[in-house]
C-alpha cells in the first residue's frame, strides 16, 4: 500500500474516532458544556491539557526551529514547559477552588467589576483568535502536504470535524477527543524519533541516545568545519539577555493563556488540579525532550547525507527528490562544481532547508514503512485540531458566558445558556476557518506575541488576586491596561514600524517579560493608593486559599 493510501486511511480512522467520541460525550447542561461537569479524572485532564497545549507549531515546526538554532532553540523548549510550574504552583489549584467557568469570571468577581471582566474578555478573545487562525491554517497545510488537496479544502474538512464534537459536546466532547488526540500525536511523534535515534546510535530511546551517544560532539565538529558556530554554543543568534527575557515571556505567557487555564476548571477537586498539572507536563515532556534529540539527529543526518555530495547522486535519493519538489528543500549548484555545499552564508550556500522538513521528512529519510508517513500526517492534524478546539471553547465562552450570561442576561435559563454557547462555538469555527483560508498577513507574526500579551495582562492580575488580598479593582485594571499597552506598543513598533528594539536590545518576543513587571508594579502601587477591596472580596480570597469545599455535592457526581 502506498504512503498516500495509508495517509487517507489513518487520517480517516482518526477522524471517525473523534466524531464517535464527540457523539458519545454530547451534553445538555451549561456545566457540562463549559467545564465538562467538573468530572474529568486527573490523568485524563493531563493528557487533554497536553494535546490542548501542543499545537501544529509544536508538532511540525519546533524540532526544525531547534535544529536551525541549536542551543538558542532552548527558548522554546524551556519557555513552553517552564510555565507549567508557575501554573501548578501559583494558579491552577486556586482557580479550581474558585470553580467558575472562565478566566474573565475570576477577574470580574475578584475585582468586583464588569469593566475588569470586559477587559479580560477582550484580552482572551484577542489572544485566542490570533492563535486559532494559525491552527486552522496548520490543518490546511498538513492536508496539502500529505494528500495534495488544496489548503482551503483541508481547512473545511477540519472545520466540519471540530464543529461536530465541540458544538455537541462542548468542553466534555473537547476533553475526551483531546485525550484521543494526545494518543495519536505522541505515537506519531515518537516512532520516527525512536527510529532515527536507533539508526544513528543503536539506542532507540531518543533522550538517552541524545545524552550518551557522540552525535552532539560530531555535529559540533561538522558545524565548525563548515564555518558555523558549534551546535551547542549558546547565544549564537540572540544575546544572553534576550534569551533570558524571551524564555521568561514564553513561560509566563504559557501560564496566562486562557485555553490552558480553563482545563484546570474541569477536574473534580483542588488536589486533582495539582496532580493533573504534573501529568500534563509529563505528557508534554515526552514530546519536548524528544524534539531536541530529533533536531540534533536530523541535522546531523541531513548534513552528512547531503553536504559535498555530487548533485546528480543527491537527486537520485527518493526523499530528496520529493521534498525538493515541495521547495522545502532546495539544491542549487551555484559554483558549478557538480557538488552541493552547505555554508552559513545564504548567498553561497547551495542547500536550503526549511525548518518544517525536519519532522515531516524523518520517516522517509530513516526509510520507515509507508504507514508511518500516514501516522505523522494524522499526528499533525491531531495536534492542530486539539489546540483549535480548546481555543474555540474559550472564544465561545467569552461571548456566551462572560458577556451574554454574566453581563447582558443574568436570568438566562440553562437551555438558553447552552444554546448560545453552541451558536458561538459554531460562529467561532466559521471565523477560524475563514482566517485559515484567508490568513491575514499579520497572523504568523502575531501568534508568537500572544504569549507576551498573556504574560503582560492575565498572569499578574490572577497571581496578585490570589496572593495579595490588598490588590483592588483600580490596581488590577490599571496594571492590565498599562502592561498590555506597553507590550503592544513595543511589539507593533518594532515589527511593523521599524522601531529600534531600544530596551537593551530585547526582541519583541521577549518584551512580555518587561510588560509583566510593569503590570505587577503598577497594580501594587495603584492598589495601595486607593481603597482596599470590600470585605466580601477579601473573604473570597481567604476561601480560595483553602482547598476544602471545592468538590461537587455527591448527588451531582453520580
Amino acid at each position, binding site marked *: 500500500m502506498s504512503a498516500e493510501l495509508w495517509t487517507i486511511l489513518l487520517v480517516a480512522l482518526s477522524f471517525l474516532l473523534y466524531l464517535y467520541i464527540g457523539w458519545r460525550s454530547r451534553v445538555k447542561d451549561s456545566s457540562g458544556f463549559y467545564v465538562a461537569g467538573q468530572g474529568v479524572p486527573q490523568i485524563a485532564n493531563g493528557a487533554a491539557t497536553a494535546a490542548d497545549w501542543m499545537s501544529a507549531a509544536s508538532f511540525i515546526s519546533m524540532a526544525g526551529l531547534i535544529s536551525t538554532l541549536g*542551543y538558542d532553540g*532552548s527558548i522554546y523548549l524551556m519557555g513552553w514547559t*517552564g510555565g507549567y510550574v508557575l501554573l501548578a504552583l501559583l494558579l491552577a489549584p486556586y482557580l479550581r477552588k474558585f470553580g467558575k467557568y472562565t478566566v474573565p469570571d475570576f477577574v470580574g468577581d475578584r475585582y468586583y467589576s464588569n469593566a475588569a471582566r470586559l477587559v479580560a474578555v477582550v484580552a482572551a478573545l484577542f489572544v485566542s483568535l490570533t492563535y486559532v487562525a494559525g491552527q486552522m491554517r496548520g490543518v490546511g497545510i498538513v492536508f496539502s502536504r500529505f494528500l495534495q488537496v488544496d489548503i482551503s479544502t483541508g481547512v473545511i474538512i477540519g472545520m466540519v470535524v471540530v464543529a461536530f464534537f465541540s458544538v455537541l459536546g462542548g468542553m466534555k466532547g473537547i476533553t475526551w477527543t483531546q485525550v484521543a488526540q494526545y494518543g495519536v500525536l505522541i505515537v506519531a511523534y515518537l516512532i520516527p524519533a525512536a527510529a532515527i535515534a536507533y539508526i544513528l546510535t543503536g539506542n532507540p530511546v531518543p533522550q538517552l541516545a541524545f545524552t550518551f551517544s557522540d552525535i552532539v560532539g560530531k555535529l559540533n565538529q561538522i558545524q565548525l568545519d563548515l564555518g558555523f558556530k558549534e551546535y551547542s554554543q549558546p547565544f549564537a543568534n540572540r544575546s544572553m539577555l534576550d534569551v533570558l527575557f524571551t524564555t521568561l515571556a514564553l513561560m509566563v505567557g504559557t501560564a496566562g493563556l486562557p485555553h490552558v487555564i480553563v482545563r484546570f476548571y474541569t477536574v473534580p477537586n483542588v488536589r486533582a488540579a495539582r496532580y493533573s498539572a504534573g501529568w500534563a507536563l509529563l505528557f508534554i515532556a515526552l514530546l519536548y525532550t524528544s524534539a531536541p534529540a530529533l533536531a540534533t539527529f536530523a541535522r546531523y543526518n541531513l548534513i552528512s547525507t547531503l553536504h559535498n555530495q555530487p548533485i546528480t547522486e543527491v537527486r537520485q535519493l527518493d526523499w530528496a527528490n520529493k521534498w525538493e519538489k515541495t521547495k522545502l528543500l532546495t539544491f542549487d549548484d551555484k559554483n558549478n562544481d557538480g557538488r552541493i555545499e552547505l555554508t552559513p552564508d545564504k548567498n553561497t550556500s547551495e542547500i536550503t532547508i526549511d525548518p518544517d522538513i525536519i519532522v515531516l521528512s524523518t520517516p522517509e529519510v530513516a526509510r520507515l514503512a509507508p504507514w508511518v508517513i500516514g501516522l505523522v500526517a494524522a499526528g499533525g492534524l491531531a495536534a492542530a485540531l486539539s489546540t483549535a478546539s480548546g481555543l474555540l471553547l474559550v472564544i465561545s465562552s467569552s461571548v456566551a458566558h462572560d458577556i451574554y450570561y454574566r453581563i447582558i442576561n443574568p436570568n438566562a435559563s440553562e437551555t438558553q445558556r447552552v444554546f448560545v454557547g453552541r451558536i458561538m462555538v459554531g460562529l467561532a469555527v466559521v471565523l477560524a476557518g475563514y482566517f485559515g483560508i484567508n490568513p491575514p498577513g499579520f497572523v504568523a507574526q502575531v501568534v508568537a506575541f500572544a504569549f507576551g500579551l498573556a504574560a503582560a495582562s492575565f498572569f499578574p492580575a490572577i497571581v496578585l488576586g490570589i496572593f495579595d488580598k490588598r490588590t483592588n479593582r483600580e490596581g488590577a485594571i490599571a496594571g492590565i491596561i498599562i502592561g498590555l499597552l506597553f507590550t503592544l506598543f513595543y511589539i507593533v513598533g518594532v515589527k511593523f514600524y521599524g522601531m529600534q528594539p531600544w530596551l537593551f536590545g530585547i526582541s519583541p518576543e521577549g518584551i512580555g517579560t518587561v510588560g509583566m513587571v510593569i503590570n505587577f508594579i503598577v497594580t501594587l502601587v495603584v492598589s495601595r493608593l486607593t481603597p482596599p477591596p470590600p470585605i466580601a472580596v477579601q473573604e473570597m480570597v481567604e476561601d480560595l486559599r483553602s482547598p476544602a469545599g471545592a468538590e461537587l455535592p455527591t448527588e451531582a457526581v453520580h
Partner: protein
Amino acid sequence: MDRDRQEAYWRANTALIRNLLIVWGLVSLVFSILLAQPLNAIRLGSVPLGFWMAQQGSILTFVVLIFVYAFQMDKLDRKYGMRK
C-alpha cells in the same frame, strides 16, 4: 483558632512555593541560560552540560517540581485538616 490554623497552612504553602520556585529559577534561568557558557566546559556523557540542561535537564526538573508540590501539599492538607 480556625483562623490561626488557616494562616499557618497558608504560610507553609507559600514557603513551599517559594522554595520550589527558587529551584525552578536556578535550574532554568541560572544554570541553563546565565551560566550556560561556563557549564558547557563540563561534559555529561558527550554533551556539554549547559546545553544539556537547557534542552533536557530543565524540562525533567520542571516535571519533578510539580509532583513534589502536589505530594507535599497532600501532606500539608492532612496536617492542617484541610481535607476529609
